[in-house]
């Protein structure tokens, strides 16, 4: 019964929510754009002046800039790889009927409920610490020199921590997808003489394509903005070895008090995020049809 009148009414009723969301998005974006063209430093807030493209040039020529973009992409791709492959594997394991299935599933999902800084601190002080971390104990047990994770492999360490946090999410989504797989299809494939790995590649994986796409898209949104885990573990270092774009902006804004430079970095981050989004939608978006 969607007459023209009710459609108009519906539009009217929707309007406040849409306008609110739009304002919520556009005002900060415009303010960031505006600040990115100003000389605006918190140490001297009275002395603002028009800067033109200087902030962008300054941010772009920062020796840490290219490395931070590289680190951002490595972090996103590394975590995506671990969570999708590991999540598929764990989902297939806990899809099998086992004793204590409910408890196992809750345990698998629980890392997701730990707040990011807490998780990072636990990993930093209790697991990866070179003198009293669990991994150091294991290394000493085998008579090997313990690894100083955050000094030797800073980015890898952060990837591991973030992957640990996101693995439950991937597992959960992929598990629901696995559970909707038609058992008769699997039996038909079995009768057709398909061994387990063929059934996985020809049936299970195509069936899960949509769920994997959802996992990739949602995780990418969150992984581009990873920040807390870096702050509490490596603080972007050593040097800039574990600085991603978000952290570089934080450094400009909160350590150098350079609002203009940080705003320019923020706009660059928005552009990068959009590039990644376009690339992703081209690459995997058709799975969502």
């Amino acid at each position: 019964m969607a007459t023209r009148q009710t459609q108009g009414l519906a539009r009217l009723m929707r309007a406040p929510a849409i306008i609110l969301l739009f304002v919520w998005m556009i005002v900060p974006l415009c303010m960031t754009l505006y600040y990115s063209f100003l000389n605006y430093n918190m140490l001297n807030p009275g002395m603002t002046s028009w800067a033109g493209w200087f902030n962008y040039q300054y941010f772009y020529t920062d020796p840490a800039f290219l490395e931070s973009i590289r680190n951002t992409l490595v972090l996103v791709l590394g975590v995506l790889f671990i969570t999708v492959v590991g999540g598929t594997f764990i989902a297939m394991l806990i899809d099998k009927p086992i004793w204590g299935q409910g408890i196992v599933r809750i345990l698998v999902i629980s890392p997701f409920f730990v707040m990011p800084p807490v998780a990072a601190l636990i990993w930093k002080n209790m697991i990866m610490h070179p003198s009293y971390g669990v991994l150091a104990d294991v290394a000493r047990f085998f008579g090997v020199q313990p690894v100083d994770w955050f000094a030797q492999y800073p980015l890898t360490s952060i990837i591991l921590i973030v992957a640990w946090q996101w693995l439950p999410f991937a597992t959960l989504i992929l598990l629901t997808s696995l559970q909707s797989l038609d058992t008769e299809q699997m039996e038909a494939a079995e009768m057709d003489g398909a061994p387990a790995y063929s059934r996985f590649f020809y049936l299970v994986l195509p069936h899960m394509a949509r769920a994997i796409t959802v996992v990739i898209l949602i995780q990418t949104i969150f992984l581009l903005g990873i920040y807390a885990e870096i702050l509490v573990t490596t603080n972007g270092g050593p040097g800039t070895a574990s600085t991603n774009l978000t952290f570089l902006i934080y450094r400009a804004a909160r350590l150098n008090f350079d609002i203009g430079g940080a705003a320019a970095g923020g706009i660059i981050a928005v552009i990068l995020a959009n590039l990644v989004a376009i690339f992703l939608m081209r690459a995997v978006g058709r799975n969502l049809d």
Partner: protein
Amino acid sequence: MGQITLQGVAKRFGEVEVIPPLDLTIEDGEFVVFVGPSGCGKSTLLRLIAGLEDVSGGRILIDGKDATDASPAKRGLAMVFQSYALYPHMSVRKNIAFPMKMAGMPKPEQDRRIEAAAKALNLTSYLDRRPGQLSGGQRQRVAIGRAIVREPSAFLFDEPLSNLDAALRVGMRLEISELHNRLKTTMIYVTHDQVEAMTMADKIVVLQAGRIEQVGSPLDLYHAPKNVFVAGFIGSPRMNLFTGAVAADYGAQTIGVRPEHIRISATTGKWQGRVGVSEHLGSDSFFYVEGTGLAETVTVRSGGEVGLRHGDTVWLTPDEGKIHKFDTNGDRI
């Protein structure tokens, strides 16, 4: 070749015995139908033969070779599932090719067989579509095509027509019978529909609670049901079963008369009753006669048009030579 022998095959799920040990031989080229009410174990029996379930006891021989522990793929059987179980992301061509691809068959041979199967099943113009774009009957034919190309020693059908509408079901029934006549391959067909069983089978196996009640040709089962269960299950509408004084007159615990073996008359006959619901199909008329004192309703079939209405008093006369008698155990006397 496709002779299948079951020797003392049994199946238990935990404590529950779904199929007590049973013996059955299916000859090469036979069309065998497993029929029974839902939950009677007919699908489980088929899955045991297919190898999708492990037997709890006994042996399964295929062409004389012990296949009890062989994997489903190694048994040389092809199965058509109730849900068709097509691979949704593959085209019809790839669906049909899948078992051959898994067997590592050369591509030209694959193509030749796909073309042949598609032609036989009227699928040639659909080969590049996905299963989701096909109707129920077409999907069914793709599933059959996928089974044919393997050239199996026997086909297993698990209620393949139950998802189709009535008209399509009759058509597919004929196509499957036609296929059997052409291929002369053993077929085992599971259904709960006794009409499908009667029309298609060379041999019907009637199952109840996992036990084989009777094995025989459709007409054997119709004319000489071994017990009350088979008598009531085979034939449509169901056979009238009477107990009590009228059965005692015939020296039996229970007697059965098929609706088509009772004459109905407005003037004279053996049992008096009153017409309840009547169904006129043109070629046949069915009357559900009440108040006879024999059973709640007695079903009567009468050819052509009979001028009887709801509430009319009628007389029924059974065809004495076609009364089935059963003893206290329900077995035929």
